[in-house]
């Protein structure tokens, strides 16, 4: 039997089995389970058969609730069915989980277990989600390593058919789902052997069929519902034995033996930890280490958590046990204890009351929490828990891994305790997302795992930014299976792929004595030392590190690799680390290059080969003197003038020391100040735009399109220039308004991402040298100091009075202060320019409900948040509820505001005499249709508050609390197409059909961008996306048209790059419209596979070819007897292909399946023409007077 060893991650291991054992797979993206669906869809598109020689049907649904419904149906109709999910997705499945289990339907759901959104969302791993479904009737089976995922996935698929009870097979999100490890793959015959054909036949026989009809899903009454629920008991009682039988069958065939509860440790252990998931690996290995040192400790790893078999649990425990700690990776506030703890306590209580206890005296049982949201769980923590168990009165309900200085639940532990073994190579790589470090390391793991007898493990840590993201790769290689699901704290090899990291981080913090440091540095081995910051020099000397250096970017340039240094640094690692003999390693790298890049063309392979060959000649060991020479210290993380909150909480997060923060440092309810990105100077741009006033035509487009508010315009009095730095640039303002004033376009040099959108959009050429414009990219480093001073001065220049600005123009809009700045969105992001515009136009009175997705991540992911405040302290108030409920969430804002505004009006009316007639009347009748009206009302409210403060009446107090609601508020409901078109569509439809004054902004990237590019119903025909690997075959949903059918909602479709004036007009009209408004904004995206600096050009072409119609539908016009639909685009003249084939999402299909590409492109062309026909007809027919529908 061939069972090759391969390296893969937990998601692939699960999908490997699930795909082969299924006929129908319903999928929906959610981190970290998405890759399981992606693998399934990809394999189906490649026509890979399942165990029975047929290709499973893989179907993406609109939500996890939809996926659950679909699998329920498929199961009822008799298919072998699976799905994959995590976190909120599992919660959305709950109603169907009860149904599927209640009907005794065999199925397996594979869950990459993840935190639930509580005070904050977290994509990382814990058991909050699976613990929330333990009452559904699904069996819960837990895997703790990548190998176990593959093995127990099969046990689950095999057992469910025999047990008739559905299974959730879960493993830890990221820690197991995304760990790359060497595993033995199961053969198809292994799968066949454990999946009983007879049980499949029985499943088919129970299926709904008109050929043997039955009815299922009845409604029952008090007479029988109860009994019927009890009728399933025997199936649940049988499960433990069935699972164990399947595990035994597996062991007999494959050799790895699992039990419902696996015990490891001293045979006469006195202290035992009970645990689920990957933490079990850590406990088991630590117990083994301690046993060797003579301690009587052990570990029970829970595999089958539901049904919980007390009998098997007790059997697993040595009878010598005196104290047990049940560790839970979840939190249930207000409970008697977390679930596993309660189960263990109950198990002992029951077995004691049954008189069946094998223990001399009942062991003490304590419970503790660990590892929430992928918090590290290390041998040091395990050791501390064992120590606690040895105490006379061990702490119960403890936490470990954090410092709880508020309710003092935490156990302090010795962080230096380690069980790492000497013969394991432990390597850390600090890289940038864009330099390919992680990809190369995954490749190295593959090489070592698959081409040598060694075992390999790779785990990768990413930061929370989408641009300039820092990655740290943790790689272990050794002669035995690596069972260390925690980060490396003692590295013997450290690589730093970006020299400037040395200024920001102590990359040697984890280095052991004698470690090797590999630096990508622009300096020669002789020069290097003097360019290292002092703290790094000190670390090198203290740890006696050897230092190797290479100018990888230079090698990359020489060999045509551009900015990709991955292959070069990988070669260095192999050359220095000695994991493989050098020649063997080079051959293996080249072999791997051929495998990885072969399909992308010979030239790519050749360039990589050249890079490998050139690398060794450029790799040198650096001279290390015996003394520190540098005086350069690491600069402070945030400047002195930062607020206390930023210094105390944000700064440690920025420094990578968030783990050290105690509980008391954290807000109790998830509330954070806005405007904190300004304190994080990331300096990620190699080049920044510099303004050349000589050629500027003052169009303000550069500022408009800047995704990061890192290029801004100000118009100001000449007096403001007093004290300007010498390098500060200024020119006369040329417009008829603000005559005599000055203007400046200024870049924020340390916040700019260098995307180049501003330069591309600039229409003003330098007439003496047409390669230059009125704004040009220049290297950042030499300009940083001057431009920093200029920007600081620029910010100090007073803002114009909003009342004097014509906000409906591009120039006017850019005179407004952006209250969304320096986000961590991708460089060149197509979404954020719209949000920034929103913040400029309405930010000082906006509440924003933000659906989960890219915009909630760059908008609300710690450490810093980009929503900001103006000089008056006003700015957008922002919150993210969930993915699916955002429209309703935002509507709730409106309902509240309307009610409280109404009540404030009532109170003002009632208090008319005390407040003064004039003030009360003015407050109640205020016209707030423009900036002046809002300004005046704010002034009235200020007077009102002063007067109310002096009054004692309860109604006055009440009005004081809600007086601010008398000022007009602007409610914005923001999200991406995945939310608006798919998962949140029901709610969005509800809100659009209401009469409430909310504004919905759909940032339409035509794909689930945040989770990595899965198709949504907004994905256009012919585009390739995950879950549409063969090209999306159906046309894009016309969300705007659907909303228009109500006739009562304002609807606009916009594309800033195609028509910026129309976009601004749409924002203003939508906000002004006293009812629901929907703006659908074309947002170019990194997931389109385009040159992001040309994103606005893509938008333009999308409109020119008719793919993206521009229009505004304003019901107010209809009531005025005018045509409500205004088309803002013209009959398509550009072929769709000319737009589409500039984008990889379309182009790649021509490379993978040219015939399908041609067919779909022809249909896409017809879609564009049909859309034009439809809209032009509607524009003509909507008008009561039969308007001409001609475009503006």
């Amino acid at each position: 039997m061939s069972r090759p060893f391969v390296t893969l991650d937990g998601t692939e291991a699960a999908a490997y089995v699930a795909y082969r054992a299924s006929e129908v797979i319903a999928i929906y993206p959610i981190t970290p389970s998405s890759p399981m669906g992606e693998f399934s869809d990809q394999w189906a598109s490649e026509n890979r058969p399942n165990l029975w020689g047929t290709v499973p049907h893989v179907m993406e649904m609109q939500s996890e609730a939809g996926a659950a419904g679909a699998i329920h149906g498929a199961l009822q109709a008799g298919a072998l069915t699976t799905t994959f999910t995590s976190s909120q997705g599992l919660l959305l499945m709950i109603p169907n989980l009860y149904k599927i289990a209640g009907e005794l339907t065999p199925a397996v759901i594979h869950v990459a277990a993840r935190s639930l959104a509580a005070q904050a969302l977290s994509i990382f791993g814990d058991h909050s989600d699976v613990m929330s479904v333990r009452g559904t009737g699904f069996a819960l089976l837990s895997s703790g390593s990548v190998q176990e995922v593959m093995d127990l996935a099969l046990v689950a698929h095999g057992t469910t058919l025999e047990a008739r009870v559905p299974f959730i097979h879960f493993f830890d999100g990221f820690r197991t789902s995304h760990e790359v490890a060497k595993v033995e793959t199961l053969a198809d015959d292994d799968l066949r052997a454990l999946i009983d054909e007879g049980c499949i036949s029985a499943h088919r026989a129970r299926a709904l069929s008109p050929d043997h009809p039955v009815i299922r899903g009845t409604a029952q009454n008090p007479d029988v519902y109860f009994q019927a629920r009890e009728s399933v008991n025997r199936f649940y009682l049988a499960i433990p034995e069935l699972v164990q039988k399947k595990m035994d069958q597996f062991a007999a065939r494959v050799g790895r033996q699992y039990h419902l509860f696996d015990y490891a440790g001293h045979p006469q252990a006195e202290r035992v930890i009970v645990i689920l998931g990957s933490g079990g690996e850590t406990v088991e290995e630590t117990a083994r280490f301690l046993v060797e040192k003579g301690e009587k400790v052990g570990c029970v790893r829970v595999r089958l958590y539901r049904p919980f078999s007390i009998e098997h649990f007790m059997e697993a425990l040595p009878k010598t046990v005196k104290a047990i700690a049940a560790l839970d990776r979840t939190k249930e506030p207000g409970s008697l204890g977390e679930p596993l703890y309660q189960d263990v306590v109950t198990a002992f209580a029951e077995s004691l009351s049954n008189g069946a206890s094998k223990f001399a005296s009942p062991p003490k049982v304590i419970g503790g929490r660990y590892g929430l949201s992928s918090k590290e769980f290390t041998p040091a923590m395990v050791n501390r828990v064992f120590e606690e168990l040895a105490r006379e009165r061990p702490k119960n309900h403890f936490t470990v891994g954090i410092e709880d200085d508020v309710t003092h639940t935490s156990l302090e532990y010795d962080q230096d305790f380690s069980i790492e073994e000497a013969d394991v190579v432990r390597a850390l790589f600090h890289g940038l997302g864009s330099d390919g470090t992680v990809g190369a390391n995954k490749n190295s793991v593959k090489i070592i795992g698959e081409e040598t007898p060694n075992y390999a493990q790779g785990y990768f840590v990413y930061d929370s930014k989408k641009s300039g993201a820092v990655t740290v790769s943790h790689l272990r290689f050794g002669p035995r299976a690596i069972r260390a699901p925690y980060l490396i704290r003692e590295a013997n090899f450290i690589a730093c792929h970006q020299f400037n990291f040395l200024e920001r981080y102590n990359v040697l913090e984890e280095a052991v004595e004698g470690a090797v440091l590999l630096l990508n540095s622009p300096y020669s081995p002789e020069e290097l030392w003097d360019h290292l910051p002092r703290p790094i020099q000190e670390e090198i000397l203290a740890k006696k590190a050897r230092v190797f250096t290479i100018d990888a970017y230079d090698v990359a340039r020489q060999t045509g690799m551009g900015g990709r240094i991955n292959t070069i640094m990988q070669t260095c690692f192999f050359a220095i680390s000695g994991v493989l003999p050098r020649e063997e390693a080079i051959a293996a790298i080249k072999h791997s290059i051929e495998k990885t890049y072969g399909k992308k063309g010979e030239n790519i392979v050749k360039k990589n080969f050249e890079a490998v060959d050139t690398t060794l000649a450029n790799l040198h060991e650096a001279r290390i003197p015996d003394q520190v020479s540098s005086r350069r210290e690491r600069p402070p993380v945030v400047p002195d003038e930062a607020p206390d909150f930023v210094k105390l909480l944000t700064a440690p997060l920025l420094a990578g020391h968030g783990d050290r923060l105690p509980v008391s440092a954290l807000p109790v309810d998830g509330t954070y100040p806005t405007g904190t990105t300004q304190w994080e100077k990331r300096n990620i741009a190699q080049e920044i735009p510099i303004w050349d006033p000589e050629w500027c035509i003052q169009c303000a487009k550069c500022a408009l399109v800047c995704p990061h508010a890192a290029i801004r315009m100000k118009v100001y009095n000449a007096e403001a220039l007093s004290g300007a730095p010498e390098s500060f640039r200024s020119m006369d303002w040329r417009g008829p308004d603000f005559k005599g004033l000055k203007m400046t376009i200024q870049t924020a040099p340390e916040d700019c991402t260098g995307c180049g959108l501003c330069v591309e959009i600039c229409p003003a050429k330098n007439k003496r040298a047409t390669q230059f414009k009125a704004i040009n990219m220049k290297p950042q480093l030499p300009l940083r100091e001057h431009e920093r001073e200029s920007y600081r001065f620029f910010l100090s220049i007073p803002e114009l009075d909003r009342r004097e600005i014509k906000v409906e123009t591009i120039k006017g809009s850019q005179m407004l202060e952006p209250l969304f700045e320096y986000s961590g969105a991708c460089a060149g992001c197509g979404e954020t320019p719209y949000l920034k515009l929103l913040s400029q136009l309405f930010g000082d009175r906006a509440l924003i409900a933000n659906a989960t997705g890219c915009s909630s991540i760059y908008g609300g992911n710690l450490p810093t948040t980009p929503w900001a405040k103006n000089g008056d302290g006003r700015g957008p108030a922002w919150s993210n509820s969930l993915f699916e409920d955002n429209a309703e969430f935002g509507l709730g804002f409106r309902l509240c505001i309307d009610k409280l505004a109404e009540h404030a009006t009532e109170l003002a009316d009632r208090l008319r005499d005390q407040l003064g007639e004039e003030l009360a009347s003015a407050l109640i009748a205020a016209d707030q249709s423009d900036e002046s009206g809002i300004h005046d009302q704010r002034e009235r409210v200020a007077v009102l508050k002063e007067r109310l403060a002096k009054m004692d009446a309860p109604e006055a107090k009440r009005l004081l609390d809600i007086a601010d609601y008398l000022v007009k508020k602007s409610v914005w409901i923001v999200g991406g197409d995945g939310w608006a078109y798919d998962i949140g569509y029901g709610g969005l439809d509800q809100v659009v059909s209401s009469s409430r004054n909310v504004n919905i902004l759909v940032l339409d990237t035509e794909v689930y961008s945040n989770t990595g590019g899965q198709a949504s119903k907004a994905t256009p025909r012919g585009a390739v996306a995950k879950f549409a690997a063969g090209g999306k075959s159906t046309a894009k949903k016309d969300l705007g048209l659907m909303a228009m059918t109500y006739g009562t909602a304002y609807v606009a479709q916009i594309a800033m790059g195609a028509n910026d004036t129309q976009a601004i007009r749409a924002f203003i009209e939508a906000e002004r419209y006293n009812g629901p408004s929907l703006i659908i904004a074309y947002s170019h995206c990194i997931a389109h596979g385009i040159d992001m600096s040309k994103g606005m050009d893509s938008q333009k072409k999308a409109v020119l070819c008719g793919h993206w119609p521009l229009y505004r539908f304003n019901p107010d016009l209809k009531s005025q007897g005018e045509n409500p639909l205004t088309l803002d685009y013209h009959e398509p003249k550009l072929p769709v292909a000319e737009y589409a084939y500039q984008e990889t999402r379309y182009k790649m299909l021509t490379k993978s399946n040219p015939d399908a590409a041609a067919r779909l492109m022809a249909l896409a062309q017809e879609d564009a023409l049909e859309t034009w026909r439809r809209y032009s007809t509607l524009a003509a027919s909507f008008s009561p007077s039969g308007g001409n529908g001609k475009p503006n």
Partner: protein
Amino acid sequence: MDLSTTYMGIPLKSPFVPSACGPLSRDVGMVRALEDAGASAIVMYSLFEEQIQHEAQELDHFLTRSTHAYAEALTYFPDLDNYNAGPEEYLDHLCRVKQAVDIPVFGSLNGISPGGWTAYAKKMEQAGADGIELNLYFIPADANLTGREVEQAYVDVLAEVKRSVTIPVAMKIGPFFSSTFEMAKRFEAAGADALVLFNRFYQPDIDLEELEVKPSLILSSPFEMRLPMRWIAILYGKVKMSLGATRGIHDALAALKLLMVGADVTMLCSELLRHGPRRLTEIEMDMRRWMEDHEYDSVGMLKGSMSQINCAEPAAFERANYMKTLQSYERYRVA
């Protein structure tokens, strides 16, 4: 009426061959229509090695950019098993064209690297091409590059390709050699089976509003056939290679003139792009009519009859021609 001719040793039923012009050969249906309209062979659009490499690099760049950088989106595209990142698309199409028609099909190749020239040529042969046209030109914008080096590079590429294939190879050249005749002899010595005169370069234009240099394609005008006509007239009978005429052939009269100076085939593009394949039938009928009217039995009879070696005024194809034009211009001004 016998319109047959022989090109690179391959007998053709007429001298009308649609040239290596993109839109004409990109669609199998169009090639069939051209065959039906009387095309005696077809030269496929050019396979541009540079474009293939660029597209492969672009695909790799966009598929890998920003991957493994952010925990939720480790990639942005599905990892498909196969991409036609090389010349497969071209070769598949060549194969389909070859299967769809009975006339000879010539591949056209524009390479940039020595390896590219030979490898792609061989693949075209394997895909069924009856011959290969090397579309060889570049703009020597490097001041350090001598004319002799440029010429030698051309010859070397040809020799390499000839060594790698067994099918005939034509050289399509531009008119800017210092000594076209000498180059023709060198190409012949290097094994060229035909010389195709002359390539039309895409000349960039300037957009005065946008202040940008923009590529611009202008279809040929009838006057342009004069240049190949002169050089075919000069070369005819002095080289053994076949001679292909291309540029500015818009009607039967132009084709006749080129045949008369010695062309074995006349290659059309702009006229077919403007008017479609049926224009080929019209041109052929016009030619037949003219030949009948002027009592020519066959193309063979008129081929080379007005070449430099056969015409009454051989010097007319050289400098004298220029002098005469000036004189006639002077006369016109006086009048």
